[in-house]
C-alpha cells in the first residue's frame, strides 16, 4: 500500500458516492438490529429495486446513530432522520425521496440530543458502512497511520499523545502519553499492544458501539500505538457476549491485512504489525490489566500485585501496552490533527470528549459524546430529555460497580475526572444510569454489591469474604431485619475492603455503598429504624419485635 493507492481508493469511493442521488443509511448496530432494522433495510432495498431506482439510490447499513430508544433509525441524505421505522414504511420513505420527509417518522435532528454533541470518537458512526474498509478510507481513514509511519518518529508520536492530554477512557484516567512512554522506553525487542474491549460494566455499551460501527478506527489506533511503543503484535480482548462486534472486527482485520494496512512492511516502511482477537469468557475481573493478561495466556483471570506493571512485565513477561477501545479510537484524530487541537477541547485536566451510554429512567436513552466539562444537568435534562412519565430525578449512577450515585444537588457539576472523584464517584468507562423516585438506593447498592460478590475472582480474602459480608448486611437492611449496629459494621467493612483488596475490583467495590450512604443516609435509616422502604421497592414484612 502506498499513499497514492490509498488516495485512489478514497477517490474511487467518493466518486461512487457522488454517483448516487440519494443515500439511505440504516442503523444496523445491536440496538436497532434487535428492533429488526435488518428487515427494514431489506424492505427499502427491495422497494428501491421495484421502482428501478437502484442506480440513483444507495441503501446501506451503518453503525450506531445514537438514539437507541427510538430505533430502528435511518437517515436519508444525511439530512433527515427517521425513527421507529418498520418494514411497511419502506414505500413511503422511498416515495418521499427528494421531497418533504415523511411526517410521522420524522425525528428532528435539531433537538439537543444531537445538536449538543461533539463527535470525535463517534464521528464515523452512522455515516460509514462498518463492513467496508473503502468507506473508512474515504472518510480519511489510515491517513494518520501513513503520516506517523512516514513523517514522524515513534517519540514524536508519543509526544503528540502526551501533548493532547488524553487520559485512559477505561475508567481510571491514567495519562495515555505517560503509559506509552513507559512502554516505549523498554529496550526489549518483543512488545505487545492490547486493546481492552472487555466492557464488563453493567450499563455500559460505548465500546460495543464503537467496535460495531467503526472497527477500523480502533485498528488504526492500535497500529499507531504499536509504532509509537515499538510493538509488532497486538491483541484485541473482546467479550464473547458481543458476537456482532467480534464478527465486524474479524472482517475489518482481514480487510486491513489484505490491503497491507496490517502485516509486514506497512506503507513500505520497516514497521510490521499484526492483530489477533481473543475472546473473553464472561469474567468482569478480566477488565483489570493483569487479569486480562492472564486470560489471554489461557489461564484463570486472576490479577497479580503490581508493580511490576504490564508496561515492564506484561503478556508472557514482555512489555505490554493496554488501552481501552475508546482511548485507542481517539488516537488517529489526535495524530491527524495534532495534540494541541485535542487539548483545546474539554477542561484543564480532562481533555477531549467522552462517550456516555445514557440509560435508565431517561427519555432519550442511547449513546452520546460530549466535551469533558459538560454539566451533568445538561446531559440528563437537555440531551437526555429528562425523566419520562413525570418522574422526579433522584440520582445518576456513573462508573458501574466501581462508581457511585450522584444526587440532585450536584447536577450543576461539570463532568470530568476530578469533579466526579470529588463527589465519591468515578468517570468509569462511561455508563450513566439515571434513577428516579421509584428506585431504592439501598437496593441499588445491594445490586452492585451482589455483582462484585459474584465477580470477585476469589484470590484475595478482603474482596472474596468482604463483599459477601457486605452483601449479607445489605440484604438484611432491605428485608428490614438490620439494626444500627449492622450499618456501623457495613461502614467498617467498606473501609477494610477498600484499603486491603488486591486489585481495583475489590478496592472500589464499596464505592456504591459509600456514595449512597453519604447522600441517602435517610433511606438507609428508614429501612433500619422505621422498617419501611421510601420508594416501595423493597418488600419489608412488618414483624413483631424488630430490633430498634
Amino acid at each position, binding site marked *: 500500500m502506498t499513499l497514492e493507492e490509498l488516495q485512489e481508493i478514497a477517490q474511487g469511493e467518493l466518486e461512487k458516492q457522488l454517483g448516487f442521488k440519494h443515500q439511505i443509511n440504516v442503523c444496523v448496530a445491536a*440496538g436497532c438490529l434487535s*428492533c429488526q432494522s435488518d428487515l427494514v433495510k431489506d424492505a427499502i432495498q427491495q422497494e428501491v429495486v421495484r421502482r428501478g431506482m437502484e442506480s440513483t439510490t444507495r441503501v446501506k447499513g451503518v453503525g450506531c446513530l445514537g438514539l437507541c430508544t427510538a*430505533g430502528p433509525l435511518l437517515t436519508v441524505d444525511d439530512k433527515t432522520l427517521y425513527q421507529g421505522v418498520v418494514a411497511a414504511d419502506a414505500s413511503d420513505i422511498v416515495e418521499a425521496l427528494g421531497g418533504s420527509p415523511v411526517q410521522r417518522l420524522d425525528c428532528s435532528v435539531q433537538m439537543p440530543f444531537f445538536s449538543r454533541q461533539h463527535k470525535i470518537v463517534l464521528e464515523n458512526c452512522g455515516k460509514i458502512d462498518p463492513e467496508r474498509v473503502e468507506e473508512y478510507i474515504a472518510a480519511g481513514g489510515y491517513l494518520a497511520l501513513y503520516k506517523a509511519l512516514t513523517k514522524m518518529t515513534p517519540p514524536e508520536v508519543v509526544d503528540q499523545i502526551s501533548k493532547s492530554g488524553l487520559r485512559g477512557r477505561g475508567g481510571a484516567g491514567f495519562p495515555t502519553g505517560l503509559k506509552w512512554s513507559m512502554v516505549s522506553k523498554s529496550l526489549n525487542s518483543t512488545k505487545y499492544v492490547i486493546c481492552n474491549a472487555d466492557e464488563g460494566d453493567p450499563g455500559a455499551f460505548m465500546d460495543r458501539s464503537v467496535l460495531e460501527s467503526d472497527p477500523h478506527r480502533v485498528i488504526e489506533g492500535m497500529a499507531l500505538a504499536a509504532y509509537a511503543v515499538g510493538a509488532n503484535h497486538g491483541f484485541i480482548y473482546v467479550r464473547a457476549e458481543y458476537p456482532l462486534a467480534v464478527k465486524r472486527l474479524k472482517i475489518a482485520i482481514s480487510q486491513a491485512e489484505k490491503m497491507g494496512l496490517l502485516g509486514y512492511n506497512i506503507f513500505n516502511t520497516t514497521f510490521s504489525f499484526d492483530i489477533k482477537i481473543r475472546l473473553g469468557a464472561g469474567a468482569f475481573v478480566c477488565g483489570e490489566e493483569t487479569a486480562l493478561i492472564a486470560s489471554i495466556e489461557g*489461564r484463570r483471570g486472576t490479577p497479580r500485585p503490581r508493580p511490576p506493571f504490564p508496561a515492564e512485565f506484561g503478556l508472557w513477561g514482555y512489555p505490554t501496552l493496554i488501552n481501552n477501545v475508546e482511548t485507542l479510537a481517539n488516537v488517529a484524530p489526535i495524530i491527524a490533527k495534532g495534540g494541541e487541537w485535542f487539548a483545546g477541547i474539554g477542561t484543564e485536566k480532562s481533555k477531549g470528549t467522552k462517550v456516555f451510554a445514557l440509560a435508565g429512567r431517561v427519555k432519550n436513552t442511547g449513546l452520546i459524546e460530549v466535551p469533558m466539562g459538560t454539566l451533568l444537568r445538561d446531559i440528563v435534562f437537555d440531551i437526555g430529555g429528562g425523566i419520562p412519565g413525570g418522574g422526579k430525578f433522584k440520582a445518576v449512577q456513573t462508573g458501574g460497580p466501581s462508581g457511585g450515585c450522584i444526587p440532585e444537588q450536584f447536577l450543576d457539576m461539570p463532568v470530568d475526572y476530578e469533579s466526579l472523584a470529588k463527589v465519591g464517584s468515578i468517570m468509569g468507562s462511561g455508563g450513566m444510569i439515571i434513577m428516579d423516585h421509584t428506585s431504592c438506593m439501598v437496593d441499588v447498592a445491594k445490586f*452492585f454489591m451482589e*455483582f462484585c460478590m459474584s465477580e470477585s475472582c476469589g484470590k484475595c480474602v478482603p474482596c472474596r469474604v468482604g463483599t459477601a459480608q457486605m452483601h449479607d448486611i445489605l440484604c438484611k437492611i432491605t428485608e428490614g431485619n438490620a439494626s444500627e449496629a449492622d450499618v456501623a459494621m457495613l461502614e467498617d467493612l467498606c473501609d477494610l475492603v477498600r484499603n486491603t483488596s488486591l486489585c481495583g475490583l475489590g478496592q472500589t467495590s464499596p464505592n456504591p455503598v459509600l456514595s449512597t450512604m453519604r447522600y441517602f443516609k435517610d433511606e438507609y435509616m428508614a429501612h433500619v429504624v422505621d422498617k419501611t422502604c421510601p420508594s416501595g421497592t423493597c418488600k419489608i414484612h412488618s414483624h413483631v419485635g424488630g430490633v430498634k
Partner: protein
Amino acid sequence: MDPKPAVSSAPSKQPEDRRWRMVDRAMRLHGFQPHALIETLHAVQESFGYLDMDALKYVADGLKVPLSQVYGVATFYHFFSLKPAGEHTCVVCMGTACYIGGAAEIIKGVGEQYKIAPGETTRDGKLSLVVARCIGSCGLAPAVVFDNEVDGKSTPKSVLEKLGRWTNS
C-alpha cells in the same frame, strides 16, 4: 509470542463425531500451545453447546495442560457451561439499566411459571433460564434474549407470552 515448534499432539483416540474437527482446528491454529485453552473451550462450547468431562479431558490431552487446570478455567468463566442447555434459552439481562427497568420481576415471573431458578433448565429440557451480566442493549432495557434474538422493553407478561410459544408446542 515465542515461536515454539508446533507439536502436533492430536489425541490418539479420535472420536467419530464430526464436531470435534472444529475443536481440533482451534487447537491446531494455535500450534497446540497451552495458551490456546480458552479459545479451544470456546470452540467446544460452540460445537457441543456445553463442556462435558470428556471434552475437558480431550482438550487437556490435546494442549498438554493438566486436567485440573482445564477444569479450573472452565469453571472460572461464566460464559462456559458444564451442563447441556435446554432446547430453547431465555437470557434475561441484569445490567444496571435493565435492573432499574424491572428485570428482577421478569426473572421472578419466569421462575414462578416454570419452577426454575436462573441457570437451570426445565425438567422436560425445553427451556433454560439464564441471567446475563449486561448484554449492552441498555437503550432497550429491560432486554431479554430469546435464542439469540434480542427483545427490548420487556415485561414479565411479554416474556411469558413468548415463552409460551416454545413450551406449548
